[in-house]
């Protein structure tokens, strides 16, 4: 019981901190790409509204990025504090990938962030655009490494198990990185990040469109521009994301059928299976209660054929089944939100064609309410894939219960309470600031992040006044 509780707390703590963390890198990935597009369009067209939007979202980026860095810092040490056995066993494979992530991505982002944030008047426009692109590329490289690592834990290959120590040793790095689920997961996660930010942008724009309407004026050019851009993203990326999710589902069916069975609440493996729309899976009694189902659809969705065989949880020993009640719902919430996003995209296309994209208050209201939809779907998808990997950390090879550190329950409990308190202070502060920034309407002549901050004295002219190398000269 004692051991179980420490394990549960270790898992809960990790889930809590990753769940908090994952939102910010995803936000950074999407927002950095948006910023690069905005600055690129400004340089290409010279239209100042793009620059105003760039500066507006740059201020948001500084907060989001900082929260991503500090919460990510926790992750790079938590593997060791909470999962020391996992670290020792899988370290030779996952550690190098994380080291590459830091070297190729984190430094790139952090190194050019300063120039991107404060450097517009210090370096040339072209160089500044270069810095913005570097930050954006850094976020994408970072995502690539972290998903390679995560996918390896889901679909491990290219390793050799060392008999003496039980450690995973690298056999073939190419196979390790390009493991079977990696490409699908990468695309799915990348699109999720873009879509999440698009819906945040749409929500902020929707709010300002509604506000302008209430005040009987037209919203600023900047607001309309960002609403339009966000709706293009919804219309194009949301359907593509559905296809990407579908291919990842096929991949999961091939490599982790138990996860699929738990997601679908299916207990018996069968062909011509129905799709359960709603139900409550019951792990004890090996059944799903209150089923509402559509015949044949299950086989069609999962296998793309009417009589395809879908897996059932009873195919697996009781102690190797992922926890279906959670997966069943996290998966369905993700699908529901994804469908809504597709509908919003299609609706915007129709209104755009009718010429009333900026006048339809209903769409603006829906956009406002849907602003967190992308992030909620992303979190649900993440829960689905990670909880679906249980009871293993390295799928089929290393159990979660054999991965945990020997940390006493009091320490684990202390740290859990400390994390919750600090994260809530930080989260509350961050959200307050983000909401306050969102409440400002982007306007012509938008100022950058250094608005209320003292100025850096401009480079060389000041240096001649204050020779800061005088100490060495003497």
């Amino acid at each position: 019981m004692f051991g179980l509780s420490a394990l549960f707390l270790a898992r809960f703590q990790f889930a809590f901190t990753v769940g908090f963390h994952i939102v910010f890198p995803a936000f950074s990935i999407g927002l950095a790409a948006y910023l690069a597009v905005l600055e690129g369009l400004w340089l290409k067209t010279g239209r100042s509204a793009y620059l105003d939007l760039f500066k507006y979202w740059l201020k948001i980026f500084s907060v989001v990025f900082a929260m991503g860095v500090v919460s990510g810092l926790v992750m790079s040490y938590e593997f060791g504090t909470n999962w020391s056995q996992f670290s020792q066993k899988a370290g030779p494979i996952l550690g190098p990938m994380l080291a590459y992530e830091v070297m190729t991505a984190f430094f790139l982002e952090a190194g050019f962030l300063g120039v991107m944030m404060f450097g517009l008047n210090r370096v040339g426009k072209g160089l500044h655009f270069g810095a913005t692109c570097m930050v954006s590329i850094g976020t994408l490289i970072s995502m690539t490494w972290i998903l390679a690592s995560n996918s390896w834990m889901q679909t491990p290959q290219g390793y050799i198990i060392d008999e003496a120590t039980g450690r995973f040793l690298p056999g073939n790095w190419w196979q390790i990185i390009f493991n079977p689920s990696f490409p699908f997961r990468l695309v799915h996660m990348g699109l999720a990040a873009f879509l999440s930010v698009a819906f945040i942008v749409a929500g902020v724009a929707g709010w300002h469109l509604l506000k302008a309407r209430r005040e009987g004026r037209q919203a600023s050019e900047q607001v309309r521009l960002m609403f339009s851009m966000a709706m293009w993203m919804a219309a194009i990326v949301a359907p593509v994301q559905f296809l990407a999710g579908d291919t990842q589902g096929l991949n999961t069916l091939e490599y982790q059928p138990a996860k699929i069975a738990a997601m679908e609440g299916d207990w018996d493996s069968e062909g011509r299976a129905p799709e359960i729309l709603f139900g409550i899976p019951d792990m004890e009694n090996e059944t799903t209660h209150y089923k509402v189902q559509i015949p044949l659809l299950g086989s069609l969705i999962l296998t793309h054929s009417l009589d395809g065989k879908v897996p059932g949880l009873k195919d697996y020993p009781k102690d190797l089944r992922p926890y279906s009640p959670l997966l069943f719902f996290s998966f369905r919430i993700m699908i529901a939100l994804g469908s809504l996003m597709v509908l919003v995209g299609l609706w915007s296309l129709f209104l755009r064609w009718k010429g009333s994209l900026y006048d339809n208050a209903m769409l603006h209201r829906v956009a406002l309410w849907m602003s967190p939809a992308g992030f909620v779907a992303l979190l649900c998808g993440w829960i689905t894939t990670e909880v679906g990997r249980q009871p293993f950390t390295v799928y089929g090879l290393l159990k979660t219960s054999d991965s945990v550190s020997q940390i006493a329950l009091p320490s684990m409990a202390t740290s859990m309470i400390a994390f919750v308190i600090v994260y809530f202070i930080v989260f509350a502060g961050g959200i307050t600031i983000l909401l306050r920034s969102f409440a400002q309407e982007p306007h012509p002549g938008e100022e950058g992040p250094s608005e209320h901050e003292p100025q850096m004295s401009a480079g060389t002219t000041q240096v001649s006044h204050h020779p800061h190398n005088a100490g060495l000269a003497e």
Partner: protein
Amino acid sequence: MTETAAFWLPVVWAVLAASAIFLYVILDGFDLGIGVLFLKERDHDHRNVMVNTVAPVWDGNETWMIFGGAALYGVFPVAYGTILPALYLPILFMLLALILRGVSFEFRFKMKSPRSQFFWDASFCGGSIVAAFMQGVILGTLVQGIPVQNNVFVGTSLDWVTPFALFCGAAVTIGYALLGSTWLIWRCEGELQDTMRRVSYALAGLMLLAIVAVSAWTPQLHTTYMQHWLEWPQLALVLPVPVAVVAVAGALFLGLRNRKSHLLPFIATLGLFFLCFSGLGINVWPYIVPPTITIWQASSPPSSQAFVLFGAMFLLPVILGYTIYSYYVFRGKVTAEHHYH
């Protein structure tokens, strides 16, 4: 061939990891020090200037710590898997403090009411102090030794509460404050610079006392540490360190006294840190988890170490290049225009 690789790769990585940690210590050291100095400097505009000297670079500074964690994980997984559970609570407190401090950077500028500004200033200052102190405690606990059997930590969760480790915590906090104050002498001017010059005198005195105390204390912790001081040829390695400390300390006080000297105090403080760090490194060598696990016992297989080293050879120079570029873009004195005009 594989024998040679299995011997040299861990050595190369130990040097590389130590360099990365040293870079982290000095880079985040001065920006943590600025948080500690909030204790002394209460003026809002001055505080803004202090924070602005590091605003464009602190993310990069902190990245060296993430690199340290990831490198340890990939290259010395046994060390990672034993040190972190042993230091569970200090590391936890340090990380939470770094979180509070990191977001305060952004939040303190964006909060408008005096009350929330006070809160985030306090969290910036408190977070910096706790992070600095805990880093010292971690160092102290590591140097005093971590009980390990079969690659599993076998001590208690409060092993770090010893006079030596706590003293190291205080010493590192003082050292970071000195790094911060001398950094500000370089990067600021006027009244703020004068204050920092005065503060630096006191901090430099305290730091030298701390260096003497830790140096006298360390050899008594383990017989292997003592041997460095009693046996030839180890003595040849450690003996120059105290001599150099005296010389660099002299340069530091000269720089502080000469009001035309802006950069020398900071450079001299970096020198002090380098000497302390390498002194400790020589003492601990070749253990990575004193007193039982050597760098070779802690290593991941050569294939893992070689894979990361291959990338590091190309990437680290590039990283250093653009880090220097970023510092270069934001060179020069930082001022609060509206305050002085």
